[in-house]
């Protein structure tokens, strides 16, 4: 069980506030999620010829520069590496498939957290306060972001099991709730070629969306299908390259609050995460209806 938060700027001039607002929202959700925290931030879109990956290593002394050099040499590619705590953002013109294979073969201790042109995902064990401080979240600027604070229910507390889950380019999902048919669904999706790293139910939801998008569905359609295919209680927030979406299951026992003003759209599990945001006085605050897809930005 958890707290989820999301912020999306309609007014791009506010992109510099992303980290500060996100940090404040995340910390307000600490009691809902004391075990681990994670964010997906959308920023610094790379050139179309390049791919951006976020990588994670458990070893705090991991030699990221070494990895970058080796990668550049092995794949004859341009590689830039920027380290942030236990993660590294790698921007390269190497093709994604080769990149994944090379990493899989050569760096077994490194996990790919996200891939795309814009998204960066950071997740770690520890309280949200610790996370915000360690990652200097306040310094991050961007167009939109999702965050998650985790109270582990059925799967372990590890970085890997934390949200956001990303199973597609620039796509991520955070989840508050508990699915009830994810095990069989995981098997079905695996047969369709979707890969999973964990036994976490939220990862199955992310994989399901990815599968739907692969089939040609729009994000709205994919979430609409999710209402029928996913069983259980959930509030989902989904991030895409240019936008974000929110969906609650038909019974809607897990909380969700949304707020929108001229400058931004925010969502959170509890209003108090939104209460401190600048401009909240002018915002319309509402509760999203069950089984209804809300989305902003293009898909």
């Amino acid at each position, binding site marked *: *069980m958890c707290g989820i938060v999301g912020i999306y700027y309609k007014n791009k001039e506010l992109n510099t506030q992303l980290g500060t607002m996100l940090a404040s929202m995340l910390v307000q959700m600490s009691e*809902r999620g004391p075990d681990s925290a994670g964010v997906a931030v959308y920023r610094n879109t790379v050139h179309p010829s390049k791919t951006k990956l976020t990588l994670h290593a458990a070893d705090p002394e991991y030699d990221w520069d070494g990895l970058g050099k080796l990668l550049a040499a092995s794949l004859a590619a341009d590689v830039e590496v920027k380290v942030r705590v236990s993660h590294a953002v790698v921007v390269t013109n190497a093709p994604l498939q080769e990149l994944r294979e090379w990493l899989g073969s050569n760096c077994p201790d490194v996990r790919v957290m996200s891939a795309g042109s814009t998204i960066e995902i950071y997740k770690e064990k520890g309280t949200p306060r610790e996370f915000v401080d360690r990652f200097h979240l306040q310094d991050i600027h961007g167009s939109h972001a999702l965050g998650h604070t985790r*109270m582990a229910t059925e799967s372990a507390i590890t970085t890997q099991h934390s949200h956001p889950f990303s199973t597609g380019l620039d796509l991520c999902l955070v989840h*508050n709730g*508990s699915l009830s048919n994810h095990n069989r669904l995981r098997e079905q999706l695996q047969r369709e070629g979707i890969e999973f790293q964990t036994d976490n139910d939220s990862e199955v939801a992310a994989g399901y969306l990815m599968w739907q998008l692969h089939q040609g569905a729009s994000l709205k359609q994919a979430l609409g299908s999710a209402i029928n295919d996913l069983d259980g*209680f959930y509030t989902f927030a989904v991030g895409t390259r240019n936008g974000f979406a929110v969906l609650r299951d038909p019974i809607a*026992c*897990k909380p969700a609050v949304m707020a929108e003003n001229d400058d931004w759209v925010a969502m959170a*599990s509890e209003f108090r995460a939104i209460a401190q945001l600048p401009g909240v006085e002018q915002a319309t605050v509402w509760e999203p209806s069950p089984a209804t897809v809300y989305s902003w930005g293009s898909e």
Partner: protein
Amino acid sequence: MSEQNPLRPSATFPLGVLAEIHRAADQGMYEIRGFGTKRSLPNFDDLLFLGASMSRYPLEGYREKCATDVTLGTRFAKKPIELKIPITIAGMSFGALGANAKEALGLAATQIGTSTTTGDGGMTNEERESSKTLVYQVLPSRYGLNPDDVRRADALEIVVGQGAKPGGGGMLLGQKITERVAQMRDLPEGIDQRSACRHPDWTGPDDLEIKIQELREITDWQIPIYIKIGATRVGYDVALSVKAGADVIVLDGMQGGTAATQDVFIEQVGIPTLPALRMAVDALKELGMHRKVQLIVSGGIRTGSDIAKALAMGADAVSLGSAAMVAMGCNKPVYLEDYQKLGTEPGYCHHCHTGLCPVGIATQDPDLESRLSPEMGARLLRNYLTTLTLEVQTLARACGKSHILNLEPEDLVALTIEAAAMARIPLAGTNWIPGD
């Protein structure tokens, strides 16, 4: 029948299954009954104590003390609960039980120095006045729940589920919804009570955490808050209960009783108390919370040896439901015609749901209730609890313990492979724990 033509029973369709299918075809409704699971399950009888020997010395009775006191709710509450014995009385509703029975439970508990628990029907004055230490349940139905009783409770117990039917709500059939019961539960008289299976205003441990905060705010953080769970995904549930802020966890194994629910629920849902207890203790230890968040285990606790074994496996206390009723007369061979009128016999009766309890416990009928006076019920129960305590002390002393909470898993061995695997206790005569 002859030797040439013996009758061959079917193991797939034995007499009981045949009768049940005929009944279902007749009535179009699931079978509802009381009591707990009747099937044979691995339980504490499959464990044995290693008494004293050359390497381990026993304590003498009487002068060499074996203390039995337990404190519950040390984590956050300003007023934890002090018990003289590690045996409490589990939640059973006024409605399921009559007022005399509830009062008897309270009197006995007060006399011996332990607590009783309200049930899915609210708090009666009889039980508050008779029971010195009363735990007040907060259930999905919220029948009778009110802040005055919250404020005069010694602890609160948020019921997520019970062992007899984890995932199910309370049930009371029309024949037991008398005027008084109806008034306490805000229901029309004589109807079949349909109960919710989820709490109305929270779902999930993250929201439960806030609900616990609310109850603490209402009680000014004075009294302990328990969370009661039916045994299913025990490891996760215990961890989440700790994270949600519980002071005490009450774990009810599948042998736990009920006054009325679907037979299929009683028999086919939940896990036995034996593995549940082990999983709970493992989860608490992993969080560094063993003995800091206390664990009360229930579900088919019957004897002093059950209790001693549960404590050895890591429980802080046990809770009795069915056994307390048996002590007061449930299934006693008296009033035989009344058992027969129900279509049963002493020793087989599970007819709490009918309201026609022959011994006056699980009934609202005044004539039947008169068969159990509060004083008599209290004496019987007190005697039983005293016996249990003496049995626990006997076993603990034999293992060299001056306090019953010093019993350990290493004092035990298992008789069967299932029990060894479930309890993670070695098979007697070996070092083997299946699965290691």
